[in-house]
Structures are given as structure tokens and as C-alpha cells.
């Protein structure tokens, strides 16, 4: 289950898609979500990733945000 989601994110990161270079955070949202899935499991991990994406907007001041 964890592996499936992480491979899914890996696949997303490989597809040429415009959101890749617009993340305001480091590590990027997708990278962050991979880490949270590994650490907390799929459900909490994906939820935390979702919260992270909501924080990823142009008015975000804090750019470093690790798991």
C-alpha cells in the first residue's frame, strides 16, 4: 500500500508537468508527501501532504518545511 502510493508519486514526478518547479517549499510537496507516507502511513501521510499543498501558495513566507 505504502509502496503503491510512493510509486505513484514517483511517476507523477517523472511526467512533464508544470507544477514541478512552482513549489514554494523545500523539500517539495511531492517529496514531503513521500516522507510523510513512509513515516506515518498512507492515510495520515496523504492527509499531511494535502495540508502541505494547501500551504503552498504565493503568500507563504516560510520556505523551509521538513517532515
Amino acid at each position, binding site marked *: 500500500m505504502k509502496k503503491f502510493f510512493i510509486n505513484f508519486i514517483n511517476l507523477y514526478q517523472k511526467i*512533464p508537468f508544470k507544477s514541478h518547479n*512552482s513549489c*514554494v517549499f523545500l523539500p517539495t510537496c511531492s517529496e514531503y508527501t513521500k516522507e510523510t507516507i513512509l513515516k506515518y502511513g498512507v492515510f495520515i501521510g496523504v492527509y499531511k501532504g494535502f495540508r502541505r499543498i494547501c500551504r*503552498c501558495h504565493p503568500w507563504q513566507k516560510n520556505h523551509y518545511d521538513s517532515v
Partner: protein
Amino acid sequence: MSSLWNTVFYQPIYNVLIFIITNITFGDVGFAIILVTIIVKLILSPLTKKSIKSQILMKQMEPELKQIKKDFPNKEEQAKKTFELYKKYGTNPFSGCLVIILQLPVIFALYYVFYKGLSIDASLVYSFIQTPTNLHTNFLGLIEMGSQSIFLGVFAGVTQFIQGYLSSPVKVKMAKSSEARSPDASKEAFREIVKESELVDKPKTFQEQLSDSMQMNIRYILPVFIAFIAWKISAAVALYWIVSNIFTIAQEWCIRRQLTRNSV
């Protein structure tokens, strides 16, 4: 949820399409599809502009980014240095993932308008918009918009390939351009290659191999995939894809030109 999406995104675009068919293209559906796609893409272009710009600059920064990753194993320090680098190139602040994700329903609605077919559903049309009296779905007198067109499908795939190729040029090309810039950079690149080849010597798991080949091939697989889908669904969707790809190519070209002008 789906009704909200319908009223906020789908219906407005649908009505714009009907309006254009009635008043601007006089019943011609093909040209209306082209116009609607361009209008929606133009409205979204300020949002996409930023991310395309940072995509191009990111490619230029790649060697320096790698250097930072090597020099600073501490993640927080790594991030700090990276943001300094962004500032140097003037790409910060980025637009953020949320901005991109907010565009998706619009893009999806646009696609859905063409996907659903070209018959007119009067219940969706606003009261102040006239429905077209004579509807001709024959684009340029050659291609029936509602049917499947292998020609438009293949063309959609080709434009997708060109767009992907321009936005992420092949790695070999990158190394060549850095060689031209400075001999040190090329040495660095060579070291990098040697290191990578050392890594290759290690036995890889099946999954790693799979993901590597995916990265190599996605540039070729994606266009074929899109050509196939565009052909199977309808000529209208294929036409939408072609126009949208050409729009993106033009947009990227403009931004690239702007960037080189600024640097000179």
C-alpha cells in the same frame, strides 16, 4: 460537488462555446473549438507563465543545485543555500502548487466540454444566449468533428512530443551547452557522469530499473498515448489538444525570448 463543478466551471465554458458558434463562427464548430481553447488558455496564462519561467531557470541552475546538495548534507542548510540561489536567478517566490492545482478544474472542464460531444443541450444554455440555428461540424470541409480522426489524433501526439521536447531538452544537449560555457563546468559534468556510472554498476532492483526506463521513455510514451486517446475519443478533443499544445509551445517560446533578452 459535481453540480458545483458544473455551474462554476463547466457551464460557463459551454456557454462561451455556444456563444461563439452562434455569433462569431456562424455555426462552424471547429473554429469555435480553436477560439474557446485560446481564450481559456489566455485567461490562465498569467498563472502558467511563472511556472514555465521557473522551469527554464531551474534547468540553468541544475549544476549549481547539484553542487549545493553535495556540499551541504544538512537538509536545512541545503534549503537555505538553494533559496539563495533562487534569489540570485530571480525566480523566487514561486507561484506554489496550490495555484497549479486550482487551474486543473478549469482545464478539465474545457476538455469535458469537447468530450461530451457537440449536440446542444438547451437546459445548460443560459437564457440570454442564442442557440445556433445552423450547426456544421465539418471542420474546413474535411474533418467531421464528432467522428474519430486518425489524422488529428496523430497530429495531437506530434505537437505533444514537440512541446515535451522543447520544455525538457535531452540531457546530452545540456552537457554540451555547459561545456561551451566553461571548461570547469564540463569537468564537473564529467565527474558527475563517472559517479553516475559507478552507481550504475551496483545491482539495481527491478523497481529502480523500471522507474529509470520510465523517465527515459515517458517523453516518447506520452505523445503516443495522447495520440491514441485523441483519435479514439473524437476529432473535437484532438483539435483541442492540438491547439492547447501549440499555445503552450508559443508561450514557452515567448518566455524564453524574454529571458534571454533580459540576460543580455
